[in-house]
């Protein structure tokens, strides 16, 4: 088990006052999340805005400080280690960002952007080695080494994303958190990047935590899928089960809302539309957070928060009172 997350929580305090700050509330961005990822596999984390998936991904890398919970990476607890340990661990886990332009320093060449982690950690000893290594990285992601001297604004969106991926690969990490890596790209470029990520996973035996809001993409690339709502995971299952046998009402609604490019299928399909919007994070609903919008809500759901329970084969877990 490469990554094991238990009861992860990230709370942001809301202060009032300028000098003597008083905490008046808490935003529970991530409110008790548990999952595991096996080496070489991909876990897709999917959900709508405000569900906490991005914060979860960043907390796993310690880009956010977890308020509670445990993040075990190869057996070591990331959430509590100090800076020097963190530096060492950062070599083995990396991140690919959503925004292809914003994630690259506009004043650095592609080669320097990719090679920066190498320079920070002193992985290459001389200029020749540095050049060879960065050339190699450029080639791995499908870019010509001659393009290494260009600046980010000279590349297209898809190419910039490749540079970001090359940078994440430079230290040969074991785990890569992909935070919406294709959302900002054109449809025909998305496929190129998705294929690239899959190819790299096979080639380097990488483990992915793939965060996205597009269910089709997530289902395609992941081995397992976790659905999040307002800071909690409501259902986890393998990619087949999550589509064929979803149990949580929110998962149902989410799947139903995704249009499939097949008009015959669509006209025969149930279009379940749930009303309302995701409530603001400051005052989450009591009990099960989904209950105000749930078409099958019962009395128990309003008062008691459901726990994550294994279903049938154990690989499939749901947090819902109606599933017992």
């Amino acid at each position, binding site marked *: 088990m490469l990554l094991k997350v238990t009861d992860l929580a990230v709370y942001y305090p809301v202060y009032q006052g300028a000098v003597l700050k008083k905490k008046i509330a808490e935003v529970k961005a991530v409110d008790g999340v548990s999952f595991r990822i096996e080496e070489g596999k991909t876990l897709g984390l999917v959900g709508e805005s405000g569900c906490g998936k991005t914060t979860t991904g960043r907390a796993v890398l310690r880009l956010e400080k977890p308020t509670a919970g445990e993040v075990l990476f190869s057996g070591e607890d990331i959430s509590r280690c100090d800076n020097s340990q963190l530096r060492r661990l950062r070599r083995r886990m990396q991140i690919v960002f959503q925004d292809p332009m914003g994630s690259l320093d506009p004043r650095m060449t592609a080669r320097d952007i990719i090679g920066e982690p190498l320079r920070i950690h002193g992985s290459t000893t001389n200029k020749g080695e540095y050049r060879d290594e960065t050339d190699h990285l450029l080639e791995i992601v499908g870019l010509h080494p001659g393009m290494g001297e260009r600046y980010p604004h000279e590349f297209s969106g898809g190419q910039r994303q490749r540079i970001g991926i090359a940078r994440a690969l430079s230290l040969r990490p074991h785990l890569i958190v992909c935070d919406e890596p294709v959302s900002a790209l054109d449809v*025909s470029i998305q496929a190129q990047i998705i294929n690239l990520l899959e190819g790299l996973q096979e080639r380097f035996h990488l483990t992915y935590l793939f965060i996205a809001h597009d269910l089709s993409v997530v289902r395609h690339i992941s081995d397992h899928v976790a659905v999040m709502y307002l800071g909690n995971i409501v259902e986890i299952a393998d990619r087949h089960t999550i589509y064929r046998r979803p149990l949580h009402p929110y998962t149902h609604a989410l799947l139903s809302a995704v249009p499939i*490019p097949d008009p*015959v299928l669509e006209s025969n399909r149930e279009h379940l539309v749930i009303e309302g*919007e995701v409530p603001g994070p400051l005052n989450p609903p009591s009990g099960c957070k989904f209950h105000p919008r749930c078409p099958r809500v019962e009395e128990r759901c309003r008062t008691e928060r459901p726990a994550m329970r294994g279903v049938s084969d154990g690989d499939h877990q749901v947090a819902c009172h109606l599933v017992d």
Partner: protein
Amino acid sequence: MAGLLEVRNLSTHFSTKEGLIRAVEDVSFDLDAGETLGLVGESGCGKSVSAMSLMRLIPNPPGKIVNGEIVFEGRDLLKLGDEEIRHIRGNRMAMIFQEPMTSFNPVMTIGRQVAEPLEIHRNMTRNKAWTICADLLRRVRIPEAGKRLQSYPHQFSGGMRQRAMIAMALACTPRLIIADEPTTALDVTIQAQLLELMKQLTRDAGTALILITHNLGIVARYADRVNVMYAGRIVEKATVRALYADPRHPYTVGLMASIPRLDQDVKRKLRPIPGQPPDLLHPPSGCAFHPRCRNRIPVCEIHRPALEKASDGHEVACWNPVREAPPCC
């Protein structure tokens, strides 16, 4: 019923300091009353510019509608004067934009903005318009509609703002609504809500809808007919069933093969379209898609194919169209 909209050879060009961009070139299509037409393509294909051209919202400079006819309700919009076209905008033809954040004036209440088309086109007083607005907001399922008229845009969520925009578009019961990527910036469940709402409202009122999107799933669910655009031109036209069952243009086929489908059980490798979208400043010779095309033959580089009938109601612009259904379906 006679065609509501007939577009013939529409061309819109932009003169930039780097050269001439032929954003929309020789676009022709029809739309019947009550029909939903999907306009599909990636960024830069000209779908948004086409929509703007229909409403004559192209900024001049640098853009200009250089050719064509837009016959709406029997009149050529391109021949109308400014006063006349203003009478049509928001009244007979309305538009819903992509960005709900910036499409509303932040210092005016929602009620005032939704009422604006009524004040302009129906000469209504504020009070009378107000009642109608409350009703409109109710129709788009904004809770506490009456009270909400007094709210400001920043007090609405993205989804609610978009509903208000739909309400504004419907205010004067237009015959045609153009929705330009109306749900791209929104969550998937909100997207479903809004699109269902739009479908229901347009069906009830018999309004035609031009739905502009890059999402092939949305088109499959909501459109009656589809135009696929690439590099400023329409490359394929068909009914929605025909397009998905039997796509002919290699670009359409390539697009469908490159998107992951939610219902794909077996892990299939995506087949991306190689290369990059075309540079409209220096488009490729002949067929604009030829550098990326798997069905390329020598003539594609030299002559541009025109739209030709492939079967009933199905037109393709290709010298070597795909003959059989691709394996992914």
